[in-house]
């Protein structure tokens, strides 16, 4: 009992610090959420914190921003487009990166170290620098304005980081496993399929989150390679077009932010347990 109390006292400053940091982090989001429920005239005339004076006076809240965003023509199509872009643009780099990371970590071949450094070195190349040359190549291949093109683009931009993270995880797996499987006569692909991949599920899960959010929130890559016509435009393009060119109707953005956040939030909150279980399973088996 006494030690517990001591522990609590020792940890208390830490807890206070973490809570303060959490509050600071969440503060702007709360402001955004409250603003998204306020009528535009109120938004223009007073700050969101003024509602806290009478938090239960529901007449100061409205759903009209959400209604305007959701009923905006083409938003449904944009949602489907975003899914069409995001799912392959997430799976593609992760499949490639798993193969690559396994090869870099456990297979002997000429120039392994060099190629690994080359790939990871690509992390420092700014995306904006590649837009014009890649768009030129896409034009020649007829890929600009097509979903296939943007899958490749996102896969390419994501690969360096994804390979690096996967490499870190896979190279940490115990080498005895690989040795004994090789002795038992397993081919590299069999090792990859039945040992590396199942063990890497937790890493894949967390890297998927990175890649998913990056692609889901992307505006620039989509605008450049895909264009903004309604049949291909993703959510981000539609949402940025809700606001007038002088910034009118920006209060719609607050609601739109939560609409576009909804799916990632649902996915990750509902899969959270699975991610944690994956990490535990990996640690015990390893």
């Amino acid at each position, binding site marked *: 009992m006494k030690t517990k109390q001591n522990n609590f006292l020792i940890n208390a400053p830490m807890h206070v610090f973490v809570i303060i940091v959490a509050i600071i982090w969440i503060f702007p989001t709360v402001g955004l959420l409250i603003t998204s429920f306020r009528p535009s005239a109120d938004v223009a005339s007073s700050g969101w914190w003024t509602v806290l004076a009478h938090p239960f006076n529901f007449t100061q809240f409205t759903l009209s921003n959400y209604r305007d965003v959701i009923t905006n023509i083409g938003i449904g199509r944009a949602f489907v487009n975003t899914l069409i872009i995001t799912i392959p643009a997430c799976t593609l780099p992760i499949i490639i990166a798993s193969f690559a990371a396994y090869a870099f970590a456990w297979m002997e071949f000429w120039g392994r170290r060099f190629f690994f450094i080359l790939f990871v070195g690509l992390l420092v190349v700014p995306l904006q620098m590649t837009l014009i040359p890649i*768009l030129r190549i896409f034009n020649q291949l007829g890929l600009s304005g097509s979903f296939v093109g943007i899958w490749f683009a996102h896969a390419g931009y994501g690969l360096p980081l994804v390979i690096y993270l996967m490499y870190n995880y896979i190279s940490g797996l115990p080498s005895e496993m690989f040795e004994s499987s090789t002795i038992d006569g397993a081919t590299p692909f069999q090792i990859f399929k039945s040992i590396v991949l199942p063990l890497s599920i937790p890493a894949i899960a967390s890297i998927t989150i990175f890649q998913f959010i990056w692609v889901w929130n992307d505006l620039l890559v989509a*605008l450049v390679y895909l264009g903004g016509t309604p049949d291909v435009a993703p959510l981000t393009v539609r949402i940025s077009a809700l606001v007038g060119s002088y910034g009118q109707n920006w209060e719609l953005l607050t609601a739109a932010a939560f609409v576009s956040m909804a799916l990632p939030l649902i996915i990750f909150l509902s899969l959270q347990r699975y991610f944690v279980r994956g990490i535990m399973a990996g640690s015990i088996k390893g």
Partner: protein
Amino acid sequence: MLKKFSLFFVSICLLCLITMPVHAQESVTVMGVWTGAEADAFLKMVEPFEEETGIKVEFTGTRDLPAILNTRVQAGNPPDVAAMPNPGQMASFASQGRLVPLANFMDRETLLTQYSDAWLQLGSYDGQLYSIFISADLKSMVWYNPKAFAAAGYEVPSTWDELMVLSDKMLADGNTPWAIGLESGAASGWPGTDWIEDIMLRIAPPETYDAWVNHEIAWTNETVMEAFEIFGKIAKSNEYVYGGPNAVLTIPFGDSADALFTDPPNAYMHRQATFIKGFILEHFPDLVPGEDFDFFPFPAIKEEYGTPALGAADMLAMFNDTPEARAFMEYVASAKAQEIWVAELGKLAPNKKVDPMVYPDDITRKAADFLGEASVFRFDGSDLMPAAVGSGSFWTGILDYVSGEPLRNVLMQIEASALDAYRD
């Protein structure tokens, strides 16, 4: 697990291929800076065109137009028709040979029956017409609340001296004359550049303004300095402007006019272009244009230069010479198209054949008259300058100046970036 996964992946790919758009129909791709209500107005304008010709207009509106357009043009994948962010950008595309000369299919004589020569000049590069103006905004306007003016016994000033006398009278009454807001995200500072430009046109002949825009005179020139000082006398003052310089720096420009309509008014005057009407009506839907708010021309400072009109305009140019794009350009040049476009947005039409009755209210008609009668019209200078200055150091210079940096330093910084930017 792996099988299921790959099956899932393949089916997604198939689904995507099926839903892939097919471009069988004749179409013209258009890229513009218009989003929100402006994009809706644009689509409304092209509706009759689509019905008449069967050509589909595929419109992309993005506020990042300069960057996206430049990327797509350099990569050889430009839209058929695009709005030019400013005449400077138009000239640079034209000089690279990217634009299609409109003389290929449009007759200058016919255009002259609809456009004044000045508009055609502004859309030309090296004597060749490349772009068509579809609307204009007037900037030299001071907005005020006639009821608040009447209640306090204030008269609309017609000269700068009268304006300053009025301002001091307001101060004596315990009121604040001006409302200014410079915040505009990454573009913060631009409302201040309009002030400087308007003042420049009123303290020096238009030739000096042109020389300044083309960087034939330095930023440290006396006239430029005087213009900044006149602006600073108001914007940097704690009394003349609502909230003092701190508020000037932080209030979003779209919200700054709100100060005129509080009770009692937080401020009495606001210098801004025609489009601010949209913000006012959005924030205060019950106000009646012409009764609850109105404008007077930004007054003459030196009598000999009068009240020139400063403005901006929307222009379209053509990158791909297709029959659909030609038909589209001819349509947007027509009075019929512009009547729809300007009526929706309360902008002013460059086409002379546009019926003044399409303007939504007397304020807009008054602005159209002012624009039509002004002896001197000048394009927004910051739009004409190279981007590094006009949408870079000039904006930040305004912010630095208002936040208290010495004028000489500010102007020397702008001058340094200008020396670099005008070189090529």
